[in-house]
C-alpha cells in the first residue's frame, strides 16, 4: 500500500509508450556515446598532441638537479709546503621534520653544547626559508671536545647530527695572510658570482690574495646529480651523477722558509719585505707585517675579532707590500745614477764636489748632505757608497724632472707591476704634467733637486721597488713579478709550469753603465766608506745594496697623513734594497721598516738576513 496515491488512473496505451521509450533510450545512448567520444578526444589531445609537453613537466616534476660542489684546489709553496688546504671539520645539523618539538630540543641542546644567540638566530632564519626535511646547520665548526660530548648524548636528540664537511685551512696562519689571502662566505658583494652556475652548491669564494686572483683555477668544476624527488622535495634516489672536478692545485714561487726568515728578521716591526728572483721574476717572499690569522675569516669572522683587527693602530689587514706608499729615499739613487749614464749626462768617472750644501743659482734655499761639511769630490761609485746627496741633486737637476720620470718609468715606477695579486698600488712618479693635474700648480726647480734623492712627491710600493731592483740586477729586461709557478690537476699528475709573462724588452744601452752602478752598490756593502758596510761584513757572497731613509708619505691612497700627530722618530721609514750575488744575482730584496731610524741601521740587517736565508739554504746551488 503506497502512501502517495496517484490522483488519476486512466488506462494507458502501452504500445506507443514503448516505442517512445525505445527512441529515447536510443537517443540517450547516442548522446552518451558522443559525450564519451568528446572525453576520449580530450584524452587523445592530452596524450598525443600535448604529450611532449606533459612528458617534460612530469620529468621536471620528479627530477631535480642537485649541485655537487668541487673541493677547492690546494695552494703550495715552491717546495710543496701546504699553504692552504681543505680540512675535515664538523658541524651540527638539525632536520626539523625529525626533531619533533624544536624549541624544546634547542633548550636541551644548550645544556650539552654552547649555542650562541647568533647561532640560534641564524638557525631561526634558515628554518623560515627551508623545508622541514632539509638539514639545517646549527653550529659550525664543532671542536673535537664538542663532537665527543654530543656523541654521548646523541640518542637524546633525534634529527640532530654531527655532519663532516671540508673547510679551508691555512696551516701557516699569519705568515702568508697577505699573499695567499683567504676565502670567505659568498655574500652580497659577490652577487655577480652568485648567479654563476659554477658556484652552485659552493659556499665560499676567494676574497683576497692568491685565493681571489686564482679563484677560477682553484674553484674547480661543479658536478651534479639528477635526483628523483617526491612532491615534498625529498630526494629518493640518484638517477645520474656527474662528479665534480677538484680545483687545480697551485704552486707558488714563494719559499715558506724564506718567508719565515723575512718575518723573523722584521722582529715584529711594521714593514714589508719583497724578495724576487731577478732571473725570472719569481717572487720568493712577500711579507707585510703585522699579519693576521686568515683562518678567522673563513667561516665568518666574529664581530669582536674584526673590531680588534680594524682598530689596531698598526693596521694588520693593510697589505703594505702591495699597497703601502713610501718615499723611496736614497734607494732611488742607483736608478738615477744609471739614468745619468744612459742619457749621456755623466760618465762613470765624472765627479761632483760635495760641500755639505747644494744651491741653485739665484735661489735662496739650500739642500744638505747628510754629512756635515760634505763628502768632498766624489765619482758615481763613491756617491753611491756614501750616499752623497749633492751628486744626485745636481744630476737630477741636469736630467730634468720629465726626462727623469720617463727613464724611471722603464723600471716600472709609477704603475702597478702586474704581479698576480689584486689591489696593487701604483705609486707616484712625479712630473710636470702630474703635478699640474693633481695640484694645479707648476713644477718648481727645487722639486727636481730633491727628486734626485727620492723625496718630494715620490711614492713607491715595496713590490715596485723590489721589481725595479730585480730589473736593475738582471740588467736586461723587466719581468713582472710572478707568484704562480706551476699548476697541477689532481695529486698524481705532473705539475704544469705556469706560462712566464713576456718580458718587457731590455733597455740598457751599455753594460758598462750597469757594471758601474753595481760597483757603487757593492761599495755600499763592502767598500771602506759604504754606508751599510757593517751589514755586508762576513757575507759569503758579494752583495749590492743601497739604503734609504724617508718620511712616510701616507698610509694608503686617499688617506691624509697628519705629520703633526706622529712623533718625529716615527715618521721615518727605513728602506733597503739589495741583490746578491752581485756578479750573478739570484735574489733581489726590498725591505721597508716603518718607524726605523735609518735605512742602513734598521732595514739593512733585515735584507741581509733574507739574502743569507736564501743563498745559504742547504740545497742552494
Amino acid at each position: 500500500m503506497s502512501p502517495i496515491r496517484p490522483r488519476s488512473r486512466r488506462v494507458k496505451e502501452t504500445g506507443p509508450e514503448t516505442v517512445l521509450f525505445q527512441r529515447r533510450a536510443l537517443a540517450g545512448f547516442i548522446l552518451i556515446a558522443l559525450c564519451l567520444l568528446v572525453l576520449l578526444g580530450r584524452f587523445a589531445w592530452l596524450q598525443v598532441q600535448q604529450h611532449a609537453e606533459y612528458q617534460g613537466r612530469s620529468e621536471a616534476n620528479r627530477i631535480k638537479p642537485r649541485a655537487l660542489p668541487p673541493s677547492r684546489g690546494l695552494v703550495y709553496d715552491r717546495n710543496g709546503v701546504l699553504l692552504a688546504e681543505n680540512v675535515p671539520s664538523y658541524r651540527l645539523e638539525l632536520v626539523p621534520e625529525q626533531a619533533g618539538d624544536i624549541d624544546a630540543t634547542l633548550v636541551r641542546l644548550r645544556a650539552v653544547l654552547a649555542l650562541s644567540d647568533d647561532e640560534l638566530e641564524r638557525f631561526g632564519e634558515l628554518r623560515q626559508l627551508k623545508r622541514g626535511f632539509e638539514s639545517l646547520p646549527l653550529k659550525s665548526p664543532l671542536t673535537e671536545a664538542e663532537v665527543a660530548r654530543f656523541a654521548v648524548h646523541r640518542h637524546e636528540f633525534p634529527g640532530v647530527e654531527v655532519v663532516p664537511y671540508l673547510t679551508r685551512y691555512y696551516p701557516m696562519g699569519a705568515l702568508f695572510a697577505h699573499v695567499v689571502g683567504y676565502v670567505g662566505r659568498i655574500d652580497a658583494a659577490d652577487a655577480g658570482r652568485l648567479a654563476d652556475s659554477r658556484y652552485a652548491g659552493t659556499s665560499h669564494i676567494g676574497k683576497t690574495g692568491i685565493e681571489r686572483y686564482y679563484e677560477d683555477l682553484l674553484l674547480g668544476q661543479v658536478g651534479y646529480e639528477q635526483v628523483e624527488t617526491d612532491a615534498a622535495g625529498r630526494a629518493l634516489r640518484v638517477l645520474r651523477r656527474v662528479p665534480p672536478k677538484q680545483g687545480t692545485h697551485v704552486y707558488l714561487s714563494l719559499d715558506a722558509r724564506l718567508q719565515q726568515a723575512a718575518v723573523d728578521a722584521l722582529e715584529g716591526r711594521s714593514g714589508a719585505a719583497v724578495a724576487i728572483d731577478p732571473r725570472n721574476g719569481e717572487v720568493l717572499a712577500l711579507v707585510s707585517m703585522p699579519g693576521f690569522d686568515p683562518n678567522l675569516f673563513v667561516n665568518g669572522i666574529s664581530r669582536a675579532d674584526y673590531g680588534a683587527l680594524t682598530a689596531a693602530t698598526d693596521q694588520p689587514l693593510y697589505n703594505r707590500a702591495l699597497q703601502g706608499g713610501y718615499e723611496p729615499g736614497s734607494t732611488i739613487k742607483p736608478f738615477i745614477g744609471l739614468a745619468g749614464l744612459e742619457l749621456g749626462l755623466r760618465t762613470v768617472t765624472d765627479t761632483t764636489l760635495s760641500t755639505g750644501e747644494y744651491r741653485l743659482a739665484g735661489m735662496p734655499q739650500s739642500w744638505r748632505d747628510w754629512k756635515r761639511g760634505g763628502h768632498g769630490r766624489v765619482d758615481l761609485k763613491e756617491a753611491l757608497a756614501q750616499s752623497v746627496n749633492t751628486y744626485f741633486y745636481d744630476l737630477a737637476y741636469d736630467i730634468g724632472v720629465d726626462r727623469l720620470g720617463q727613464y724611471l718609468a722603464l723600471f716600472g715606477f709609477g704603475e702597478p707591476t702586474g704581479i698576480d695579486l689584486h689591489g696593487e698600488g701604483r705609486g707616484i712618479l712625479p712630473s710636470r704634467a702630474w703635478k699640474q693635474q693633481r695640484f694645479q700648480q707648476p713644477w718648481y726647480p727645487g722639486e727636481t733637486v730633491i727628486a734626485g734623492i727620492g723625496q718630494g712627491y715620490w711614492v713607491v710600493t715595496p713590490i715596485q721597488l723590489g721589481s725595479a731592483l730585480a730589473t736593475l740586477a738582471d740588467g736586461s729586461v723587466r719581468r713582472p713579478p710572478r707568484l704562480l709557478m706551476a699548476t697541477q690537476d689532481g695529486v698524481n699528475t705532473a705539475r704544469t709550469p705556469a706560462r712566464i709573462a713576456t718580458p718587457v724588452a731590455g733597455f740598457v744601452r751599455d753594460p758598462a753603465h750597469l757594471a758601474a752602478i753595481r760597483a757603487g752598490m757593492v761599495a755600499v756593502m763592502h767598500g771602506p766608506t759604504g754606508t751599510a758596510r757593517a751589514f755586508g761584513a762576513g757575507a759569503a757572497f758579494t752583495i749590492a745594496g743601497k739604503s734609504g731613509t724617508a718620511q712616510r708619505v701616507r698610509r694608503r691612497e686617499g688617506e691624509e697623513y697628519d705629520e703633526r700627530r706622529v712623533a718625529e722618530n716615527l715618521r721615518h721609514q727605513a728602506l733597503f734594497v739589495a741583490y746578491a750575488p752581485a756578479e750573478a744575482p739570484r735574489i733581489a730584496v726590498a725591505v721597508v721598516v716603518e718607524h726605523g731610524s735609518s735605512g742602513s741601521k734598521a732595514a739593512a740587517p733585515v735584507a741581509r738576513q733574507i739574502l743569507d736565508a736564501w743563498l745559504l739554504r742547504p740545497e742552494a746551488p
Partner: protein
Amino acid sequence: MNWLYLRGALRRWMRRLWRRLPLDLPLTGALLLLAGIGLAVLYSASGGSWSQVGNQAARLALGFMVLLLLSRVPPAILRSWTPWFYIATVGLLLLVTVFGEGRGAHRWLDLGVVRFQPSEFAKLALPMMVAWFLHDRMLPPSWGAMAACAVLIGVPAGLIAEQPDLGTALLVGISGAFVIFLAGLSWWRIGALVGAAAAAAPIAWQYMHEYQRNRIRMFLDPESDPLGNGWNIIQAQIAVGSGGILGKGFEASTQAKLDFLPEHTTDFIFAVFGEEFGLLGVALVVALYLFIIGRGLWIAASARDTYSRLLAGAIAMTFFVYVMVNGGMITGLLPVVGVPMPLISYGGTSAVSLLAGFGVLLSIHAHRRLGAY
C-alpha cells in the same frame, strides 16, 4: 566417501544456483572485468598496498552480494517499496543535516555499528521514486507531473547539496532528470529547461560555497594558482598527458608514486590509469563503460513495464554521468567535482550503491518475461 559426497553436493548446489541466478552474463561479466581492472589500478596507485586492495576487494564483494540479492527481488516488489524507501531516505538525509558528521561537510550518519552516507541511498531511491510516480501516468508527462517530479527530485538533492556534497547532489538530481527524459519529455521542453538552467547559473553562483566557486575558477584557469587550488588539475593533466599513447607501464606512474597527484587512489585514480596505460588503455576502459551503459539501456528497452523501463534506463544513464564527470575532471574538461570513477576509485560506499543499482537492472532483466503485473 564423505569427500566425494561433499563434492557432488557442491556441484549440484552450484548448478542450481546458476539456474536460479539468471544474471545477464555480458553485463555481469563487464562489471566484474571493470572491478578487476579497478583493483589492479588501485594496487599500482596505492604503491602496492595490499591492505587498500584488500579493503576495496571486500567492499566490491559486498557490492556484488548486494547485487545478487537485489537481482532476486522482482521489480514489482521494488516498485511497491519505492515510496517507503524514498521517505526513509529523505528522513535519513534530514537526520544527517541535524546529527551528521564528517570533515567540513556533514555526510555521514553514525548508527553506532555502521557509519554510512544516506546520500548513497538517494542515488537509488530518487530514480525509483520518479519512475514510480510516472509509471501509471500519461507519458510524455504533463507540466503538472513534471512540477511534482521537480519537488521529488529537488528535496533530496537540495538536502545533499546542503551537506555540502555537490557531486552526489548532481548525480542524484540527474538520475531523476533522466527518468523524465526517458519518460518522453518533448525535446522543446528539454531545450526550455536547459535554457532556464543556464539562465539560473548566476543565481546558483550566489548560493555556492567559496570552495565550490574556487573549483569553478580553477577549472577556468588552473595555472592562476598552480601550487594551490590549481595543483590537482594541473598534476592530473600532467599524469594523463605524460602517459602518451601506450602509457608508462603498470606500476610506473611517477605522478602517483612520488605524491605529486593528490587523491591518486580515489577521485584522481583514473589519471594514474591514463599515465600507466596511455590512450590505448583509456580507450579500452571507456569502451567498456560504454558497453555497460549500452547493455543497461538495452535491458531497459526490453523491459515490459514502464516502471522497470524508466528505472533501468535512468540507472544506466547515471552510470555515464560518473564516467563523464570524473573523466572530465581529470582532463580539465569539467570543474573538479567529487565524483569517483565508478568501480575504479577507491572507496566503498559508491561501489556498493553502484552495484546495488546494477542489481536492480539485473532483476529487471531477469524478470522481463514475466509480463505486466
